[in-house]
């Protein structure tokens, strides 16, 4: 036996290494610097690390690379436009999360440098979700994504809500991971390999074993992206976790789940499409109905946004279901996630500004009269609510337009009808926030600091751009989608 070095191109995984390494660097800094100074510098350092990774990622756009290729086998890591585009989404999520956290954490007494550390680790896992070309790496990336989130959810321990949030997230997350890894094992049993190209080649002859594997992996992803009927944890976890963590996971964990789901299901399990597309379509419909209908009765903005995030998972699932039979499915999903990133983080930024203390100022009634006290931020919140509903000219509208179009192209007319009807229903609870802000008088106040205002301004701008010029951005997502799938089919 002799050791044969696999082909390694470090530049390809450099963005991930930078992000994970930034987390490790923060940890080491505490050895050499006073704790207070580390706390002071942690956000800046996180932003620098994210910016470096962002530049590196942008530089890789348009290129296709593979790395960690062992002798005579397929590569572990693949970087194509699909992965690059998702990495941009994750890095922007991290960037906005830092901006909204800088002043929030000290205000509620949670200022700890570990927060940024764990956030960076989680981000590195998310980035790997889109780059993994092997089911083992998908599973590890999923865990690297999740474990820091379990801890972040419990950051405001010993507050009971936060402990409940962390415990629920941990138990259900561990349970779903177990189901997911069982699915991987069955797929391995059916195809003889965990490498995605080999799975693609063998899965259509896999019989019942392969189908069971696909079903269990669907359940595992369903938990991660909070799709009904695997959504039960979402409202409690989102409500109990510190709001910045909720914002981070409502975008990051969801997009991370969809990143791997698109890669695994659309390309590797594509030949089984006739079997899993109906299942995903039904799950999407249930998710849309439950998310949008239950959100109506929520008195708490975090719970409302939790159900709203369930509903948005439903819209993205529509695009996933469409992506086997329509060339626009994957790009619609990517565009939707891109628009969702800005809209949802913007809405959370305002919710964070409105939170007085931990868990205070998060009821919808606290939004009464905000329009008089801070007219610009109320306007921004109203704009985000319009975008989440899907009213033009917003990024949310463009995203929904592309998703519905792809669904119709794929011949899932009934699903598109469900999507449109539930969008109309969602108008009720989103616009009620606007109504409360403008039509009532109230005591609510907003904590506004430059960093948070920057985040709000940038997200408003991005949502507006995506709403006014969707065509140019859609072309980019189209390139990302096409290249991503071609490579895997060929490799």
């Amino acid at each position: 036996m002799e050791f044969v070095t696999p082909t390694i191109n470090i530049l390809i995984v450099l963005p991930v290494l930078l992000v994970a390494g930034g987390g490790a660097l923060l940890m080491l800094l505490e050895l050499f610097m006073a704790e207070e100074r580390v706390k002071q510098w942690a956000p800046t350092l996180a932003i620098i690390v994210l910016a470096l990774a962002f530049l590196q990622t942008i530089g890789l756009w348009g290129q296709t690379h593979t790395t960690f290729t062992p002798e005579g086998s397929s590569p572990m890591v693949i970087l194509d436009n699909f992965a690059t585009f998702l990495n941009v989404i994750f890095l922007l999520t991290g960037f906005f999360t830092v901006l909204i956290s800088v002043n929030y954490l000290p205000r509620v007494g949670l200022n700890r440098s570990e927060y940024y550390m764990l956030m960076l680790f989680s981000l590195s896992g998310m980035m790997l979700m889109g780059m993994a070309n092997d089911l083992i790496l998908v599973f590890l990336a999923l865990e690297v994504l999740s474990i820091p989130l379990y801890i972040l959810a419990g950051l405001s321990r010993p507050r009971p809500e936060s402990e409940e949030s962390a415990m629920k997230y941990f138990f259900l997350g561990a349970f779903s991971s177990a189901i997911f890894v069982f699915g991987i094992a069955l797929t391995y049993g059916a195809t003889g390999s965990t490498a995605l190209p080999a799975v693609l080649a063998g899965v259509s002859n896999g019989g019942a074993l392969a189908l069971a594997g696909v079903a269990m992996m669907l359940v595992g992803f369903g938990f991660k992206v909070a799709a009904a009927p695997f959504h039960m944890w979402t409202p409690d976890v989102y409500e109990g976790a510190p709001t910045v963590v909720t914002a981070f996971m409502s975008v990051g964990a969801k997009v991370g789940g969809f990143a791997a789901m698109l890669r695994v299901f659309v390309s590797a399990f594509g030949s089984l499409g006739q079997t899993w597309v109906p299942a995903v379509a039904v799950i999407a419909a249930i998710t849309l109905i439950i998310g949008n209908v239950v959100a109506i009765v929520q008195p708490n903005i975090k719970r409302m946004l939790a159900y709203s995030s369930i509903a948005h998972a439903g819209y993205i699932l529509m695009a996933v279901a469409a992506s086997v039979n329509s060339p626009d499915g994957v790009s619609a999903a990517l565009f939707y996630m891109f628009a969702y990133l800005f809209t949802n983080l913007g809405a959370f930024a305002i919710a964070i500004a409105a939170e007085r203390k931990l868990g205070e100022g998060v009821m919808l009634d606290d939004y009464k009269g905000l329009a008089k006290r801070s007219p610009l931020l109320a306007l921004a919140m109203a704009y985000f609510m319009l975008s989440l509903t899907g009213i033009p000219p917003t990024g949310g509208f463009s995203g929904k337009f592309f998703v519905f179009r792809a669904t119709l192209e794929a011949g899932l007319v009934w699903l598109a009808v469900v999507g449109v009807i539930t969008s109309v229903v969602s108008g009720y609870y989103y616009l009620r926030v606007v109504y409360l802000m403008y039509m009532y008088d109230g005591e609510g106040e907003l904590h506004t600091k430059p960093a948070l205002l920057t985040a709000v301004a940038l997200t408003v701008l991005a949502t507006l751009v995506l709403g006014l010029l969707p065509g140019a951005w859609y072309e980019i997502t189209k390139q990302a989608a096409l290249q991503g799938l071609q490579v895997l089919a060929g490799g």
Partner: protein
Amino acid sequence: MVLFIILAISAVAAALGMLFSRNAVHSALFLVLNFAIVAALYLTLNAPFIAMVQITVYAGAIIVLFLFVIMLLGAEQLRGVAGDGGVWQRWLAGGLTAVLLISFASILFQGNAITPASAAGVIDTSPAALGLRLFEAYVFPFEVTGVLLLAAIIGVVVLSISKKRGQQ
């Protein structure tokens, strides 16, 4: 075959001993015995690496954790806990066991109902070959596991000291 029968009988005996002993520490020790015998079974199946992992991870780390928790909580003695739950639980457990046994028996006597695809080539399960695989094909997942464990360790620290520092 003789070796297998001896090992199998002692493994089952150790498992029964674990279930029926009234002292939790004795139960844990029976479990160690069971793990060790199962490791020996792996050895007879030509899987030395899994046997060693079985010893170090299960008989080593996990049992130490069990014993630690049992002794820390002072829960050595089982008090009479029978009563709650009642009869239907026993019937349920019995029924599920029957289902499991019947499905096992049908697989054993009817041949394989499901044939898994065989991995390419002959699989060498010696520790050296596994080590080479780990650092050739799976070197990147191996590194990612490192990040995962680091995040978990930081998490333990964060959650265990949050009370004191959070109040500053």
